[in-house]
């Protein structure tokens, strides 16, 4: 992957090539083995006035004429691209494919970014009426506070922890430790969410190579990471139409399916990269994934139970908050972090005895959730 951040010097296509070339080199292949490409990008049309991203990736990577397809599911575009790549191999259609995610967000004004990201929600009935994305998550946060007594300080603890993790991730956008007080003093964006509860605007790209399991185990016994489960679920675009605003049903459904496929339980997972576009989203995620009881996520975060090598290590990359959130790239970055952790290559932020990792990537305010569970292929 590329370093995440404000890359004024790099274009969309340059970031694609950097991440893609690194993934090909890491896999120890030449590139000609690849049979297809799946690329996640949410809003390239609005952000760089460029569509037809599938072909652009194949073109720039020198991979034409192999098929190359763009996947879009708002902020879950990267995770969905990974899943499509996984399914293409599971179906038997291909043996080796490349999956990428990319977003170039700093070529337009912050206002234009807000309009582009607003497309992840229900434009006709929610954004139209004056809602913003932070406002939609703020409405969930307020309700979570009401139902479970969650506090602004508990939400802040997620941001503090993710910034601490990002200090040890050379690919992260921010290398700056923050305190609860810093978060509490940052200005309100949409109450109760403050600036430091929100993930930033980021440029970046991430890529991985997927290969049929038996072949991968034979070719790369040291490095291969196995996909144990892949699941995806949908919900209403409009927040108001959901039965619950304090739980994401798409996450709960996808989690149930993923744990069943992997024949694992939440207690078997050592690390999880979850979708913390806002701090309240991390609290809801660790509850909906079953790591903590519904309503106990805020206290768990404040008590340090999700810190590196605590009860479960959550967002060792720094999460969306501190590693950055180039929307289409995030889902693939989560997979890259899971791989590095399972291989024992996450220097400075390594989870001890990491055997199973989970990634949870959300689109919009929970209308898509895509999830994967990974395991070191050399472990029995």
């Amino acid at each position, binding site marked *: 992957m590329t370093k995440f951040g404000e890359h004024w010097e790099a274009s969309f296509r340059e970031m694609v090539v950097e991440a893609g070339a690194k993934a090909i080199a890491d896999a120890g292949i030449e590139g000609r083995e690849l049979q297809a490409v799946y690329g996640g990008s949410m809003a390239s049309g609005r952000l760089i006035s460029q569509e037809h991203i599938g072909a652009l990736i194949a073109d720039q990577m020198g991979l034409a004429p192999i098929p190359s397809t763009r996947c879009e599911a708002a902020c879950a575009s990267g995770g969905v691209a990974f899943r499509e790549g996984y399914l293409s191999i599971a179906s038997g259609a291909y043996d080796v494919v490349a999956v990428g995610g990319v977003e170039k967000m700093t070529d337009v004004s912050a*206002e234009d970014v*807000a*309009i582009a990201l*607003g497309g992840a929600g229900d434009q*006709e*009935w*929610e*954004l*139209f*009426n*004056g*809602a*913003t994305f*932070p*406002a*939609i998550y*703020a*409405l*969930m946060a*307020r*309700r979570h506070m*009401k139902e479970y007594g969650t506090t602004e300080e508990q939400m802040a603890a997620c941001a503090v922890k993710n910034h601490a993790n990002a200090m040890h991730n050379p690919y992260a956008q921010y290398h700056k430790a923050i305190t609860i007080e810093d978060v509490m003093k940052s*200005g*309100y*964006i*949409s*109450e*109760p*969410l403050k600036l430091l509860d929100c993930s930033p605007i980021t440029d970046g790209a991430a890529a991985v190579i997927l290969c049929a399991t038996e072949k991968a185990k034979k070719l790369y016994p040291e490095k291969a990471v196995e996909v144990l489960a892949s699941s995806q679920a949908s919900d209403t675009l*409009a*927040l*108001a*139409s959901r039965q619950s*605003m304090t739980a994401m049903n798409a996450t709960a459904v996808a989690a149930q399916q993923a744990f069943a496929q992997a024949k694992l339980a939440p207690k078997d997972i050592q690390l999880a990269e979850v979708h913390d576009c806002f701090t309240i989203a991390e609290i809801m995620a660790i509850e909906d994934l079953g790591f903590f009881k519904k309503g106990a996520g805020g206290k768990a975060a404040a008590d340090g139970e999700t810190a590196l090598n605590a009860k479960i290590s959550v967002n060792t990359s720094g999460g969306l908050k501190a590693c950055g959130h180039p929307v289409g790239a995030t889902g693939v970055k989560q997979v890259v972090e899971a791989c590095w952790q399972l291989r024992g290559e996450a220097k400075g932020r390594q989870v001890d005895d990491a055997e199973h990792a989970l990634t949870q990537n959300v689109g919009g305010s929970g209308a898509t959730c895509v999830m994967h569970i990974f395991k070191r292929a050399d472990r029995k």
Partner: protein
Amino acid sequence: MRHALPLIWRKSLERYRLIGCSCENCGTDYFPPRKVCPKCRRKGKIAPKQMPTEGKVYSYSLVHAAPSGFEFEAPYHVAIVELANGVRLLTQIVDSDAAKVKIGAPVKMVFRKIFEDDCEGVIAYGYKFKAV
């Protein structure tokens, strides 16, 4: 962002008068109206229905960083309002003391300007809610 006139015009019933729909097969009300009842799908029978114009605040937020078209109103309240029939919608809360905008607070619909594109652009009207 400029809005084409038909985009605003074709939603006037829903936005001006809070016309939703009901599935006559299962009795579930929906706002905004749906073409298909998710519960009954092919067996469903969708018909237009006036939604109640009173309800309660289910959740709320004071928006400080406003999107384009709403800059001059910030900070302003948005809320999820639960109507008397249990249907929820997202709306602005206006003309209300901040102290009255709380979860559970009774509110009623008012008709307001939502935004205008620019001096020659379309003016969008619709529902907002106020504390009672």
